[in-house]
């Protein structure tokens, strides 16, 4: 098992190198001159040239790349021009924020979508099937910024049940001592239950927004694969052997139906992690997506490259986890050590 994981990680190295090269070239190919941007609108030609020299952008591409690669090899992701902070530090601070939000959103989504999909598949044509259809259609057709704004409007502005959508914690609380970077877990570890409550109340609305969005693909996939499995021969065998409906559905149908659902889950997760910029913007969430977009707009290369690389690594790790999960569920793809 461990050798397998090691091998898989080895296989990922060439693709990571590819990602480094491509992001480097892409950021250079983007329109916009960072030197001009940072010099400000009133800067003279000489001033811009000076900044360009200072940033190293006057050197040939290959030299810039080698310097970048060398820095990377030393664990240096570069420094953001806009914030002046090292990219590595910023990503380290912001990634947990995104991860916490995405994970919670996904957990909420799974706990609703999977039972919904299963119930819809076992009772085709019933009200729950229609509910499933309506929910999934609504989930995909409502853009996240819209659901996010509606939730803020109703629960914060109208009802006043939730706190202001301003980041991860209420201003009166300080962040719990960092262990995992996820505030909920860190607060529990530090036994700061008030902080936990505050962090959770901040999280609920953005997480719900994400959950509504990710509900659709998961519920749909669950329903479709459950329907396929329920029509299969071995479910008929199970029914003909007089097994109880719960055994048939859980042990026989559900476990088999889980395989495509897990694939969907991994896709949804990796998508949400980097792409929920709009949610992060609506809720002023200090996440990694909004960080990358801001950097991109201001032609700030280092954070963009750092972001893409981080996402690539996350993706590799996530795929590994999915493969291991697959092996646990399906003996046919069980991994050989």
């Amino acid at each position: 098992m461990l050798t397998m994981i090691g091998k898989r990680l080895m296989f990922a190295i060439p693709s990571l190198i590819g990602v480094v090269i491509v992001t480097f070239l892409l950021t250079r190919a983007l329109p916009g001159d960072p030197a001009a941007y940072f010099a400000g609108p009133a800067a003279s030609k000489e001033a811009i040239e000076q900044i360009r020299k200072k940033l190293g952008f006057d050197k040939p591409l290959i030299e810039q790349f080698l310097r970048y690669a060398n820095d990377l090899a030393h664990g240096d992701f570069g420094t953001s021009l806009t914030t002046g902070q090292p990219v590595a530090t910023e990503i380290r601070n912001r990634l947990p924020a995104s991860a916490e939000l995405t994970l919670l959103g996904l957990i909420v989504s799974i706990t609703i979508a999977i039972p919904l999909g299963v119930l819809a598949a076992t009772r085709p044509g019933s009200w729950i099937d229609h509910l499933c259809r309506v929910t999934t259609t609504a989930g995909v057709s409502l853009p996240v910024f819209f659901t996010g704004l509606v939730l803020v409007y109703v629960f914060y502005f109208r009802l006043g049940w939730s706190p202001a959508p301003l980041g991860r914690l209420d201003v009166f609380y300080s962040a719990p001592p960092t262990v995992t970077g996820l505030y909920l877990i860190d607060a529990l570890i530090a036994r700061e239950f008030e902080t936990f409550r505050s962090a959770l109340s901040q999280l609920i609305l953005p997480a719900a927004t994400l959950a509504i969005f990710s509900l659709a693909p998961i519920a749909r996939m669950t329903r479709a694969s459950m329907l396929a499995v329920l029509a299969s021969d071995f479910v008929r065998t199970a029914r003909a052997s007089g097994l109880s409906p719960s055994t048939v559905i859980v042990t026989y149908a559900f476990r088999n139906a889980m395989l495509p659902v897990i694939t969907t889950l991994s896709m949804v997760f990796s998508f949400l992690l980097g792409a929920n910029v709009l949610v992060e913007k609506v809720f002023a969430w200090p996440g990694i997506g909004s960080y990358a977009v801001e950097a991109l707009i201001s032609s700030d290369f280092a954070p963009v490259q750092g972001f893409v690389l981080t996402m690539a690594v996350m993706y590799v790790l996530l795929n590994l986890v999915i493969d291991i999960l697959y092996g646990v569920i399906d003996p046919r793809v069980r991994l050989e050590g």
Partner: protein
Amino acid sequence: MTAQPLLDVHDLTVEFTTRRGIVKAVQHVNISVAKGETLGIVGESGSGKSVTSYAVMRILDRAGRIADGSVMFSGIDVKAASENEMRDLRGREISMIFQNPRAALNPIRKVGDQIEDVLRQHVQSAASDRGEKAIEALEQVKIARPRERYHAYPFELSGGMCQRVVIALALACNPQLLIADEPTTGLDVTTQKAVMDLIVELTKRRHMSTILITHDLGLAAAYCDRVVVMEKGRVVETAKSANIFARPEHAYTKKLMRATPRLGVSLRDLLPEEEVLASPRTPAVMAGLDPAIHHSSEGSSKAMDPRVKPAGDETKSPLLLVEKLVKEYPRQGAGAVLSKLFSRKPPVEAEVFRAVDGISFTVGHGESVGLVGESGCGKSTTSMMVMRLLDQTSGRIAFDGEEIGAILPQAFARLPLRKSIQMVFQDPTDSLNPRFTAARAIADPLLQLGDVKGRDALRARCEKLAGLVGLPVDLLDRFPHQLSGGQKARVGIARAIALHPKLVILDEPTAALDVSVQAVVLNLLQDLKASMGMSYLFVSHDLNVVRLLCDRVIVMRAGRIVEQGPSERVLGDPQDAYTKELLTAIPHPPLPVH
């Protein structure tokens, strides 16, 4: 028969709600099974034989319901029973084994656990010795090393083995009635015999009743006390199996009997009497086709007798010459194949598996050669290599004097030679593009390799080909799902002969068809061969069919040829022990009185 049958189906009607309204799959069916009796239900696809059995167990799918009649099982009214009562009946009193055993088992659950699930449901043993009970159940179906197999997953077992597990599952709770729905379809003849003998032995020992649902008259005759013949949802005849084959009463039973390939008959004998008079139909149709068909005049007389050998072919070089052909695969389990797919690691052992192990044979001009063997014997691999869909490891393939063994499969598709070798595939449904109409499917090779230009010419050619294979022209614009199995088979054949090939490889072309359709298709193939001067390489596991269609037969086992020679000699007087074993494993229906 005893006064109180174990199962009494009276006036049963089953309806299915479909988009096109209510369809009656089974109408007014009466069936009774006495204790200890084995009843065969025989019929072709769509006869309602499976639906009847599903109704008995009340496992019809959502759209189906018992509309009328009654099903009484040892005093219990199945139609009125609650779902809970039914659940107690299923698996404990009535159990069922299915076609396609591998799919009938949960692919991701150990077989031992699946047997235990049933034991647990019906509280057949204490939790502590349930494992032992499951192993015992595996032992009873004669699975070697049951203690190890307990931990096996279905994909690690062979088809025959899976069927044994399904039987173990069905008999684990000692039911009174076993319903076997085509239990051996898709299994090799020797496996079929082993599985059927096992079922009979186990059910006899336990004084169980059995319903054997099958399309194979031979199987029903060999294993059943009584036989019920069903057609289009109705029972047409019920009789003792000894009588029904000797004196079939109903016209449909007679037709079925006739169509079943068996000893001592020719291809023509398989057809219903009125159709024999109508054929041969080919020469008339052929006359309109182009000069590529040179045999048409003398073809008609040959078409009458399938075993007339084209004269003078021995002196010429053979059409196909295969010499010392070898195909090796790296030896891998299913898991290893998948891990390779995900590029996890290269296979550790460089050990190889020889699927085809140095075989040599020839196919003469106008000759049809049968390639016979059980699954995994390498017959399909051989045909794929001849077809240049697969590259061989070593050996020589010469076609019509040209070496084709060295041509890579990718390159062969573009050569004009590709026209001369065509193939008819096993599954008429899966081998047609579901988005292509019949005409488009037939036109496909013409578009790729043919010289027919223009829409109208193409259409005319398709219609001619359709006429040739007996496909009504108005069906040409239908999609595969709108055609019957036999019609789809005809489309497949028309597609294969569209370019006037010299050699057609027939890979079990009738395996998925009902016997009466099979009879027609086999006759069609015979007529086409004679009139178009083609050679056939007929890959099949069905010795009776091979006997009828082929001049020569090659018996393969484990990648090697164990015997080859003229069909009559090899199948009438087999020399090799394996050929003998194959022949004795075929269940034969008693010959009808002419």
